[in-house]
């Protein structure tokens, strides 16, 4: 006979139930669905607007990365992704739901990883639609504006390696933004402050970099802050990028991992 106190459950014990619980929490309120729809719509719309506004007349050489241009909407879409992820955590705190959640599943790190998995999974699915929509609008609009493959601009087909990398990379980028935001939210617990800090991390570095003249700091900021992740969208001039496409996404992954780890530690060692 083994007494119940000695049973050592594996660390993932009950995680299917937790996943299911997190899925139920997200899928039974209308907010997340609207936000996911907004990710797709806003990303596609902003991308299409950027495409529509950009032309390359026949007598000019344009140093525009057409595929990257057609993915401009990700810059706006990521704000909605961040909002979705932050709300998934902070709504539990503002409604007091967190106490029920942790009473049902006392292993807090498992709760956080289940939440991260569900949110990231949803974001990746919506992100795939958003990226596809953006690429399709690019394929429809940009060749008519002078960005043709014959003139050396990237092809808008997923069989073309760099375009595939940009597309898959952008989807993963959005997933990592969700993880980053979730980690920040788990640390700060307040939705307004969390979203402010997350958007600050995403938007401040590129703005600041436009003003800073020092090349050393310029390239440090380009390479080591979350903005490095967007290098994965490059299809031309990859050799002259401050950091390689996948390496850049890796930098963002480190930020996301650090944020979610710190968030996990706060959740684990702080009273809810």
């Amino acid at each position, binding site marked *: 006979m083994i007494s119940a106190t000695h049973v050592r459950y594996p660390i993932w014990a009950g995680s299917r139930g937790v996943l299911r619980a997190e899925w139920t929490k997200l899928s039974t309120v209308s907010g997340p669905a609207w936000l996911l729809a907004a990710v797709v719509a806003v990303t596609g719309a902003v991308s299409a607007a950027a495409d529509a506004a950009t032309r390359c007349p026949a007598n000019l050489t344009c140093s*525009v*990365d057409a595929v990257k*241009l057609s993915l401009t909407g990700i*810059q706006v879409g990521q704000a909605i992704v961040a909002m979705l992820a932050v709300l998934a955590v*902070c709504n539990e705190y503002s409604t007091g739901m967190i106490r029920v959640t942790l009473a049902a599943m006392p292993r807090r790190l498992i709760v956080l990883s289940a939440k991260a998995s569900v949110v990231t999974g949803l974001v990746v699915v919506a992100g795939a639609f958003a990226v596809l929509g953006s690429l399709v609008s690019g394929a429809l609009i940009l060749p008519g504006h002078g960005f043709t493959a014959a003139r050396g601009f990237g092809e808008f087909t997923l069989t073309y390696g760099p375009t595939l990398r940009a597309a898959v990379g952008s989807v993963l980028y959005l997933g990592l933004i969700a993880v980053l935001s979730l980690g920040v939210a788990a640390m700060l617990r307040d939705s307004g402050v969390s979203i*402010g800090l997350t958007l600050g991390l995403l938007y401040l570095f590129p*703005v600041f970099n436009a003003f800073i003249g020092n090349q050393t700091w310029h390239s440090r900021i380009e390479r080591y802050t979350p903005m490095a992740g967007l290098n994965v969208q490059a299809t031309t001039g990859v050799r002259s990028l401050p950091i390689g496409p996948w390496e850049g996404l890796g930098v963002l992954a480190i930020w996301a991992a650090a944020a979610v780890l710190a968030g996990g530690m706060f959740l684990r060692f702080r009273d809810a």
Partner: protein
Amino acid sequence: MSSGLIAPRRPGLRPDRASFAQALRAEWVKFRTVRGWVIAMIVAALITVFLGIFAAGNLSIGCQSRPNGPVLTGRACTPHFPIGPDGEAVVDSYYFAHQTLTGNGSITVRVASLTGLYSSNGKGGQNPLAGMTKGLVPWAKAGIIVTDGMRPGSAYAAVMVTGAHGVRMQDNYVHDTAGLTGQATATSPRWLRLIRSGDTITGYDSADGSHWSLVGSTVLTGLRHSVQAGLFVTSPIYTVTAQSFGSSTTHGGPSQATAAFDDISRRGTWPAKAWIGTEVGTGAASPGTGIGYVRVTPGAVTVSGSGDIAPLATGPGASGPVSVFEQPLTGLFAGLIAIVVVAAMFFTVEYRRGLIRTTLAASPRRGRVLAAKATVVGAVAFVVGLVASVLAITLGLPRQRNQGSYVLPASMLTELRVIVGTAALVAITAVMAVAIGAILRRSAAAVTAAIVVIVLPFLLAVTVLPVSVAAWVLRLTPAAGFAIEQSIPHYPQVSSVISPADGSYPLPPWGGFAVLCAWAVVALAGAYVLLRRRDA
């Protein structure tokens, strides 16, 4: 302190004014007693100042006093530019075929042709003209000029043909008036005339030499009795700017223009000598090649020159490390995000805890609550913005100068406008965030919306978007308000890319600020309507 909240109305005040004062006081107490908000405001000021000083102190300037010499840094690199009559830094270098005009008089010429060369890679070597491509840069200038003297920065008035902008009359570097359109060629030459009468200089142009039209007239106060007048040619740096994600690259090089003048007639007191050729304003501050000449043949004069007569602009084409007064305000974005978060939450947290019901019970006129909240947040944000911008500028500018950067001079009033305008920009942005908070009622949504409408358009404009699209984004979105920080106006007569990173915006300072205010008014109106219509 809280006694003010429940104190009876003071008899001397009209009831409505008294209750607005009460609402204001209640909101102020709410604001200052939440420690997190006060701390966030202090952090906003500190981060603005710190990042501003960092940006001002990291311009990374290096220079060489002679080719292949040791690389110098810091103040040794500071370039020196002439200062124009209105106090702005200018570029004043051109080739001048001149004589002394004493008293009143006039000069009339025909420009039979204007041709040019430009360098697209900047590799000049011993002879910069070798390896240049044929073609005119848009602001190549050739014509007649009356100037107070040949010291760079002298007062002048000139009428000229240009590479791509037709006939222009320009004076004192910053003023520019358009005349006939089209280029001067052998088949369609241009006649130009300048008349000096006291301090007044008047310019005319003509397409046939008999029908004249007035281009412009200007008064050069204190113009000497004896002035230098004659033929000039100049041609600015040729630049091509390619903007790509997160950076823009510029290439280009000096250019040279050559004009053929004939049919020259003069009135007034001129010496009987031939034209004297002088290279005006050569040296480090000149964007030109320094190779100019005047060639006199019977009936015609050919002049060739390089450089520019124009206000000095930042960005590509600036000859030397030049920066702007508002550079240390770069950190404002970080501070602004913190302030926007507080401002939006100042309204949204009322809904989270149900405090809004107490607030509206105490002050049933909802518009008054909105006004009180907006006033409190706007005033606090103004003070924070003012302290931050004064500190950032006073601590940042000396570091900027020590780096070897030439800070473009601006008038006292302009500097005051930049500093106070920045505080006003922060205040209006905060008011807009309060209104967005009242509209959306949820912290996350309100903060996201506020950041997305204020910071994101600016980010897209300085990074991904092509220049023409970026200019429209900076005209139409709330980010237009950042134009209030612009200390050096954008001059259409200087080929420069509109780039906020170099301190230039498509809208004038107050125009941009008005756009931001319009957005804030729309947001407040929306908030007012929704607040009145909806249940709390």
